[in-house]
């Protein structure tokens, strides 16, 4: 199980990011990418445990004995959720600065970028990033808290 997780999790993560990025033109998007990322992290959780992300990947000491609500990883998830909401609201409010209504989106085409030649930058991507973060944060919060029971 752990071997499988070691192999699959990076692939799943890369896939989820690519799904998230291509979402504007091909099937994908913030929600799907978010759920897939969650799936990858849950896979780690099932294979190892909640602390593995911190101790194994980031190489930090883990203080044990705190309740699940104060657990550092869960706090990080909750912050992700909050950050996502902020990004979503921020992307909506940003339109005010240029005089557009709330949540107005726009896009630009950049040409001449190395490798990709032409890149489209849509402000909707920021909004989608917020969606991504909210989905990841809330799902992981739920999963970790409930499974700690």
């Amino acid at each position, binding site marked *: 199980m752990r071997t499988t997780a070691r192999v699959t999790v990076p692939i799943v993560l890369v896939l989820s990011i690519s799904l998230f990025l291509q979402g504007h033109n091909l099937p994908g998007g913030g929600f799907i990418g978010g*759920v897939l990322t969650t799936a990858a992290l849950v896979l780690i959780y099932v294979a190892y445990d909640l602390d593995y992300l911190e101790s194994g990947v980031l190489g930090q000491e883990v203080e044990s004995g705190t309740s699940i609500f104060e657990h550092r990883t869960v706090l990080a998830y909750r912050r992700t959720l909050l950050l996502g909401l902020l990004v979503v609201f921020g992307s909506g409010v940003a339109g005010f600065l240029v005089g557009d209504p709330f949540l107005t989106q726009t896009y630009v085409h950049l040409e001449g970028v190395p490798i990709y030649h032409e890149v489209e930058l849509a402000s909707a991507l920021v909004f989608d990033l917020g969606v991504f973060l909210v989905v990841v944060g809330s799902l992981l919060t739920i999963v970790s808290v409930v499974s700690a029971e």
Partner: protein
Amino acid sequence: MAPDLTVVTTAVAVPFVAAVLAPLLYRVLGERTGYAGAAVAAASFGLLATQVGSHGTVRSPWIPALEVGLQFTIDGWGLLFALLASGIGVLVFVYSARYMHGESGLARYYAALLAFMGSILGVALASDLVFIFVFWELTSLSSFVLIGHYTEDAESRYSARMAMVVTVGGGLCLLAGLLVLAVAARGALGGVTFDLAAMLANDEAMRASLRESGLFVPALALVVTAAAAKSAQVPLHFWLPNAMVAPTPVSAFLHSATMVKVGVYFLGRVRPLMMSPEWVLLVATLGLLTMTVGALLAVAATDTKELLAYSTASHLGLMVAGFGFDVVYGGEAGTFHLLNHALFKAPLFLVAGIVAHEAGTRNLDNLGGLWRELPITAAITGVAALSMAGIPPFNGFYSKELLFEATYEVAHEAGGLAWLYPGVATVASVFTVVYSVKFLAMFVGERRAPIADIHRPPLALVGPPAALATAAAVVSVAPQLAVDAIVQGAVEATATGKAHLEVGLPTHFSPPVGMSAVAIVGGLATYPFTERLAAGIGRGVDAPIPVRPSGWYDCAVSTATTTSARFGPLVHNGLLRTYVFWVAAAGSVLALAGFAATAGVPELDVVGVPLAVTVVLVVAVLAGLAVVTASSHVAGVLTLAILGFMIAIFFILASAPDLALTQLVVETLVLLLFLLVLQRLPSFYADVRPLVLARDAVLSILVGAMAFASVLLTTPGPDADPSSVAEYYTAQAVPGGGGSNVVNVVLVDFRAFDTLGELLVVTVAAIAILVLVTMRIRGEEAVTEGEEEPVSDGGDLP
């Protein structure tokens, strides 16, 4: 002359503003707040007095697209009522300042009284049905607070609750009736509107529209029920005598002069709109019945305020009956008596308050010969009580005579059973004379029971009833003066055709004059037998429950209480699965009922389904069956996954790759989660009880049927043309949103606001689960500390 919007709005708003400020005023002024209230009432009165003679509708739009706005119609009828309310309000506030001396809770008292006065002005002047309803309910609400003024007293609380239930229940009927009228306006006025003035202007079209849709009788019944509850008509009269636990100024103001007249006022208002044979039958009969029953009960009463309460019900019946008849005299009787009744009944209540204040009792059997100590009060009572009895030349006589003329004219034209109308009216008037004399008798004759020293009442107590009695005397001497000043305008507003009111003492004999003579002579002749009569009525009232409507009320309230006490634990038992069961079942049944009532059965094109889709769906159904019958958790989870993946494949076949991708990802996540909890689940729960199994199966089928029907009925068929919205999104995705994935562009750009809402839902779900888990842990801690607290078992958590 057109009315002035600012003046009218200010007149209505000032009492409400004062009501909000009442606690502050009380802190500054103390018991003199009553005089401040009188000033407020006088301000409203003065503002409205400037509008006398004007006629018309003014509105200030708020949401023009929905026709929502403040709208007032000024005419004689509304002004008469509003001026009465504010004028008597001035006197009642002055009286209160003295009468409520030394009482507690005065800030609340004055706030409620002021709010009440503002609501009455609102009802009288508003012509937007929504506003009328709001003000109507506000009068009930402030009346509730005022009746329950003595919050420590159980009887006071009981009576306040009873008045609230009856009048607010009537208010709900009014709401339904007003909605029916608004719907009928669609046919008559070309659009749903709440504009009562427009409805009254097009009354022919409104009646035709109501008749056409078969809603005329329901609308009539609802409006009349609402008015009957408010105006204490039989069989909903029982709350009024109970409301007499309120302080006397409240009884004089709310329960004689104003609030109970709101129903009468509204009947007069819609009379031109709803006049029809059904109206006559219902309203006139109701009014005459109440007139008689109220008079009989008043004869049997021994408490001064109780007598006046039943007498009020009886006189309200007189007004209702007047409005019930489809003759000119009827409307005249109703409008003129509204004024006359306020002028004689309010002072009588205030007199009852003085007597209770000075003599210390309200029992009529113990009171007698008070004129020696209270000469001015006795004179006031003389004018008012004789007016109440309808003795010429006092003002009550004129309006009662108009009712007699109305009944006689109706009976003369219709013949047959219609002769009951004048007969009943005369009999009721006989008893009216009896109880009027009975009330007056406490001032004349000899002392009946030893009463300690009786003080002269202070000017603030005698002044208000004296002012009202003087007004009554003026109307008695020169009735045409009052008619020309304001009553004529009110008569015109409530009449179905043209009407010109002329009143005066009769100069020659006519049948209605004979009816008056019979009533007066009969009443005086019956008076010596009052006690025997009262005993007979008492026996009737004490009969088993069916005769007493208050018994029905008690029965209904106690049944409702016990039923809800039994029903509560059934639904609200602390187990999440029970909540889920009720919510899912109720939602599904409601949705299915809605579909069954409105939608037809669409055609199902079973043959045209492609083979691949059929295969996928059949596998999905088989997997679904397998989940239910799976022997172990692992098998169940895996078969559930098959079901999920089949649905994903179905999405691919139906060319919805985004959905398919989402479904696949979610399915994977769910599978992982099951892996997480699988080892913790007990392998064996308990033997399944067949009853529980059946219940769950029924619920599952219900929810499934609801989802199936919703999808079937709400989505367009595959062959249908795409809607204009869909075409817009497809066309605009690339140029407007810069993305070729239409679904995603819709999500993050066109409908980003919806997505934002969904994200909030996800967040709320996360927070809710956090809270749930926290509370569960706390609950367990509480239990481990030794408390016997029921904790839901693990199966309830998601």
